[in-house]
């Protein structure tokens, strides 16, 4: 559950970071115009993911500790993403895909931490 919460938080951060044209340009080789509707969907998805992550942390750790864990996790993930977007933007999606794969494997092997 904790792993899922972290993953949801990472999803939220990634979606919100894609709202900036600068990050989209750096992350994707093919340049295409993203419609306002897609951007709005991305924003909603990102915020929902963050809310879901917060809820997951609260379910596992209780209200007080869950809130602390959620904010601390968010700080770490957002910092890592910012550094990654600045240093190796093209790696972001690959790394994210790798994380997703790891999570799937972990879920298949048994429970999410």
């Amino acid at each position, binding site marked *: 559950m904790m792993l899922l919460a972290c993953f949801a938080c990472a999803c939220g*951060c990634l979606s919100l970071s894609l*709202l*900036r044209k600068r990050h989209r340009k750096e992350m994707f080789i093919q340049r295409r115009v993203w419609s306002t509707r897609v951007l709005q969907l991305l924003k909603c998805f990102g915020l929902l993911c963050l809310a879901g992550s917060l809820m997951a942390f609260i379910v596992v750790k209780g209200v007080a*500790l869950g809130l*602390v864990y959620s904010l*601390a996790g968010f*700080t770490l993930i957002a*910092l890592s993403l*910012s550094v990654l977007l600045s240093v190796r933007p093209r790696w972001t999606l690959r790394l994210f895909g790798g994380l997703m794969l790891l999570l799937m494997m972990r879920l298949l092997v048994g429970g999410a931490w």
Partner: protein
Amino acid sequence: MKFRHSMTWLHTWAGLVFGALLYLMFVTGSAGYFDLEITRWMQPEIPVQQSSFDAPALLPKAEQRLQQLAPHADHVYIELPEGRSPYFMIWWHNPKGVDNPGWHSEVLDPSSGAPVAVRNTAGGEFLYRLHYVLHYIPKGLAYWLTSLAAMFMLVAIVTGVVIHRRIFKDFFTFRRSHRQTAWLDMHNLMGVLPLPFHLMITYSGLILLMFSTMLPVPASSFGLNPEKLRQVYDTVFSDGDHARGNGMAASSLPLVELYNLDHSKHSGATIAYLAVENWGDEKAVVEVGKLAQTGLEPFDVSYYQAVNGESFKGESQLRDRFLSLSFYHVIEHLHEGLFAGPWLRWLYFLSGLMGAGMVATGSIFWAIKRRHAHEKAGLDSRAVRWVENLNVGVIAGLPIAIGGYFLTSRLLSATLENRVDWEMHSLFVVWFVALLHPFLPRRQCDLSQLWAEQFKAAAVVYASIPFVNWMTSEVHLGMSLKYQDWTLVGFDFFALVLAACCAYFVHKINGRQRVSTMETVGVSQ
């Protein structure tokens, strides 16, 4: 002046005035989250625990030792090597009128229960206390200074949010290409990403010192008499009625029985300590602290009558009665982070370092901006250079000083008189040298060279920590890895990581310097 402009002015000066002090508070406060681990490294005499702790077998030995050493003590405390703590330790308090009044302690071997002679050290506790008590100045003045710094920090945070127009748009932005923008982006990242932590830590810091800095509030009700105020403070933070004995001697149940009783009641919980209030008294109370699994309290505490083992509700009743008191405790726990497990502790540490980074990048950015403005206007930039030098000495100098403190602790003789004081002095001596270094007269020296030199020194200091550990103790990295003593492994490994980071900074600075030299040569040709 427009509102946002005035807020920018306030943000700049609120951050700059106490910049150096805030940096010290953030760095040492962050180190304080690992105070036990640091102390463990500074006391290599503590044996590596090779098997799990056998409390039922070793508790009677600790109790026996207490009876031997402190027959007249009124309070005793046994710390078990569980959770973060590597110590099997006994503490006792002798009341006034008895030989050696006050608190005393002894470390025991966690595998045999035999006393272990450990060196005196200021340990991680010194770094933790340094962030609010400072050093060489009276406690009261230190409280005022650190509270003022926290207040300025709070103002800087709030005004920072106001002046940052694109706070959400720029959330993940770090543009490295342009020097000035890179520093500003780094300052924003370090300030905005852990914003809830920064707000919590400064606000809670202010609340924790309110009894010194907001004295007029209790004084308006209870007067200015210090004794009366002390009484009020003691009443507010007392442990309730059970803390008072009746002076009638009585024999208590062996502590191991109460340990087993509590263990059977709360199966699965890890008991971290046992404390006895009014030891040997008819009203003696045993407090059993277990590592908390949820919530913000570090321990789940149960109380027992020492004479018959009857359990009762203790301190929590008092907290339940006063909402303000429970609020104070929540704030205190959030600030100290004692409830945090290893992962969360590291995140606390990281957020604290980001706070230090925010202050440091803010000061550097201000100096760069000022230099540009001065050069543009053709003004004398000696004052700016002075600030830049100071930045080097404070920002790069403090890590060197802390590293020097660790090394001194190991290199000083274990039997040296006043060694604790010398350990503490060493930190300030090294820091003073690092502060002086940029001001030394030289023929030609640009700022990047100063940064490179200091980071080089820091890299050498931190790289030598595992080496000095290996030279001065038996618990070197190989040994601690073999016995899986993760505290010691973590300390040595983290020192190496820090050394690598500093070496990387030196490499980057030198690279940039080479590029700028080549550009200058190219332009002149």
